[in-house]
């Protein structure tokens, strides 16, 4: 019981540390767009980037909490994991919404023209809409009368699409994530999330026993 509490604290510390490290990326790997901003605009732009990175990091934790690894099940109960998954989902959506709002705020809400070269930004807007709908459906599944199995399959497929979309969006929208350590971390988070989800699905089919 005592060991379990220690492991819980270690897991929570790891979670917080990863989030703190994610928040530090826009400070240590500044993109050139930051050079030209001052005062409030700079604060808004950096905050917008931090919100986006936080949303991405929390997404990776969504995959981990959904995978229900045996070792995590020993530390946290299934109810705790589910509660975390739900609360985490809400927070990542809030952060994802704040991400473009703060970035556009830094530019005086001057919106991008509908041009091909802004596809990573428009992909991001599409993803945000998709993610919001996905979260709303998850919360109001019963009210809108979607069966559990149907919802679960669509939720998993949607999650994979969102992970892939976020990876493409982040690696193309910002200079910070084009190469170097941030890109390696982004790729690692994306691959981890995908492997974990695929592992869970294969496990659900009964091929793998854990």
């Amino acid at each position, binding site marked *: 019981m005592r060991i379990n509490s220690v492991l819980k604290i270690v897991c929570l510390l790891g979670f917080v540390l990863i989030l703190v490290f994610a928040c530090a990326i826009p400070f240590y790997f500044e993109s*050139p767009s930051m050079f*030209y901003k001052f005062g409030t605009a700079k604060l808004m732009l950096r905050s917008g980037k931090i919100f986006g990175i936080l949303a991405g990091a929390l997404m990776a934790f969504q995959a981990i909490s959904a995978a229900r690894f045996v070792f995590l099940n020993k530390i946290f109960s299934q109810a705790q994991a589910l509660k975390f998954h739900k609360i985490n989902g809400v927070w990542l959506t809030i952060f994802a919404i704040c991400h473009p709002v703060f970035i556009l705020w830094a530019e*005086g809400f001057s919106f991008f023209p509908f041009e091909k070269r*802004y596809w990573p*930004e428009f992909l991001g807007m599409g993803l945000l809409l998709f993610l919001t709908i996905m979260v709303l459906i998850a919360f109001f599944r019963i009210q809108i009368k979607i069966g559990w199995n149907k919802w679960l399959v669509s939720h998993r497929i949607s999650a994979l699409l969102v992970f892939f979309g976020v990876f493409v969006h982040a690696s193309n929208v910002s200079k910070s994530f084009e190469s170097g350590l941030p890109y390696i971390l982004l790729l690692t988070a994306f691959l981890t999330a995908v492997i974990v989800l695929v592992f869970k699905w294969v496990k659900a089919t009964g091929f793998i026993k854990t």
Partner: protein
Amino acid sequence: MKKLLMSIAIVFLILSAGTVQAAQWKIDPAHSAIRFDIKHIFSIVSGHFSEFEADLVFDPQNLSNARIDFSVNVKSINTSNGKRDTHLRSKDFFDADTFSVMTFKSSSITHVKDNLYALEGMLAIKDVQQSIAIEFNFYGPKAHPFDKKSDVAGFDTSFEINRLDFHVGDGKFYKMGVVGDMVMVRISVEALTGK
């Protein structure tokens, strides 16, 4: 007699229509451009506006009726860097949401020598209207090599303006030695008219 008068009137109408048509030029957007160069610390950054319209009425033989008016969609600015263009459209520079169009309206056109003409007019960028005088070259007209129904002519000019005179930026980046104040504008137009 009635028929004769009618025939004369028709011939006159055709001829006068032909005269108007010869002076009215339509921009060939694929072969026309509004480009600009501006200093960034040490290098020169080039860009262009991809969307613009022009009202070109120009006949070298009849300059009294000539006019060269331009309107440029500010949001179409392109310096081959999406992030920079977003910044240029923002309140820090063009404030393109509030001032979406730049215009030039000519007031007089005079012949200088050979192909060279002097143009005066009002340049309006953001909330500033300023009278400017520039020179431009007029080439042609000649039969279009690929379009037998059209004549083609060329107009080109280059001139410098101070972006700060037009409130394109508040001078913050200029004082930092990052973005220059003088902008070299280069306009090259190929225009067509029906024969």
